[in-house]
């Protein structure tokens, strides 16, 4: 109880001391909170995207087979299916027709996907909510598609895919095979790629090796590789994440460096007076420990909370322009919050602990020399 009272007294004194230099300390807390907010926002965003991809893409095709010509993805002859279907363990092979369409009217790119179920609905399409939003259209509207020969094919919007699935379907246009071939002049007997189902998933790599042996111009892609893609592309070492983390890291180094390189004359005089009136070195260190804790813990608690609000309530508004890039059509999605305690603990140990230590070290140097020489300095 006595120890608790002593610490409460030290915190009282520390807060009064911090308040005397309020301009400096408030701006320090604001900058510190912003750094934590930025790192935590990236952490929440990337982790939730990775988790969402892992959950949603679990039902992607088990294997895709692409054909490559001169390093480019090329149309694959449907006759490849006959040989691939004969490989032991292959349950089914299906051709997939899909492609990208640039809409000159609004500058957006759509992903056109053919579904067998739509073969009877020639002349109509189902569109993603991003497409509907970008074209300001609703059901039964007509969309003109420019075909390969410059003519226009007008297709009627049969329905709009619900906006809840926008993260996978925002730019989709589901179209019949006939209309798709007419727009892009893709000859019969060719598909964009092939999808495979196998009897035993353990045989996937063996089957993939057999396919490349029979057709050396093909490249199989496994579902596991797709799932690993999002784990890797939003890894801390890649792209956006490393840029933000490096900036935050260097900003934090500057903050910690400012603290670790020494105390101001006023702070040194304060330590000297405290020692002169009877404070022990350990008391001074405890005061400086609480000073570090007050600044870094407050910033940490606030920064993480603000990051959560930013990512999961404000749809990562601060990252929006970076994520949109040159996209005209951008999905409006709401991420499901997935928080990993390990990430938050790492952030804590990388920010709060070093800052607190860097506050104590120079104070320890000042507290171990004679009070009168500290006050005279």
């Amino acid at each position: 109880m006595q120890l608790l009272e002593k610490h409460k007294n030290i915190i009282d004194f520390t807060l009064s001391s911090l308040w005397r230099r309020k301009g400096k300390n408030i701006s320090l807390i604001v900058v510190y909170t912003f750094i934590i907010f930025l790192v935590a926002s990236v952490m929440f965003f990337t982790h939730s995207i990775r988790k969402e991809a892992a959950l949603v893409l679990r039902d992607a095709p088990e294997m895709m087979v692409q054909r490559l010509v001169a390093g480019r993805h090329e149309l694959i002859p449907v006759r490849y299916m006959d040989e691939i279907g004969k490989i032991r363990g292959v349950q089914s092979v299906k051709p997939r027709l899909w492609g990208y369409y640039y809409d000159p009217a609004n500058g957006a790119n759509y992903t056109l996907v053919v579904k067998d179920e739509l073969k009877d609905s020639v002349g109509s399409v189902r569109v993603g909510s991003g497409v509907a939003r970008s074209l300001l259209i609703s059901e039964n509207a007509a969309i003109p598609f420019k075909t390969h020969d410059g003519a226009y094919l007008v297709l009627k919007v049969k329905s709009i895919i619900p906006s809840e699935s926008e993260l996978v379907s925002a730019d989709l246009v589901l179209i019949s095979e006939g209309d798709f071939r007419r727009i892009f002049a893709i000859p019969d007997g060719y598909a964009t790629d092939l999808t495979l189902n196998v009897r035993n998933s353990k045989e996937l790599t063996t089957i993939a090796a057999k396919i490349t042996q029979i057709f050396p111009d093909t490249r199989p892609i496994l579902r596991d590789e797709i799932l690993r893609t999002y784990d890797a592309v939003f890894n801390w070492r890649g792209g956006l994440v490393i840029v933000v983390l490096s900036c935050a890291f260097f900003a934090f180094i500057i903050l910690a460096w400012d603290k670790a390189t020494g105390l101001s004359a006023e702070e040194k005089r304060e330590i000297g007076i405290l020692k002169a009136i009877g404070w022990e070195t350990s008391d001074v260190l405890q005061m400086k420990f609480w000073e570090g804790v007050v600044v870094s813990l407050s910033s940490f608690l606030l920064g993480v909370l603000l990051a959560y609000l930013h990512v999961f309530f404000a749809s990562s508004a601060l990252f929006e322009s970076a994520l949109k890039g040159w996209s005209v059509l951008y999905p409006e999605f709401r991420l499901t919050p997935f928080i990993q305690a390990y990430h938050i603990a790492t952030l804590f140990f990388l920010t709060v602990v070093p800052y607190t230590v860097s506050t104590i070290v120079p104070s320890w140097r000042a507290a171990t020399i004679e009070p009168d020489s500290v006050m005279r300095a």
Partner: protein
Amino acid sequence: MLERKSHLFLLFVTISVLFWGLMFAHAVYRQRADEVLFQQKRALVGWLGLTDLCLFTDARYTRNPSMADMNTPFQDYPLSFEHFPSGSLLSLPPHLRAHAEDR
């Protein structure tokens, strides 16, 4: 009760910790509430045979990173540079590196 500055600080920490508790509770609640949405999205992915999330629509190799090639961003013309902003946000999918090493 709040006449001392240390009490104010402890009150701030307590309120923040309470908000943290709410944050974790909200995350768990939303995960459970969104379970149906995940099922719907999974069904759509399975039905259409989709392979990627629709995060970027400016470049084809960032719209479908798992279907792209290592050289796709640079193949528009000889000595071309990758110029879409989204290309700098995404790192290379691991299987593309593996395929490149096989060649």
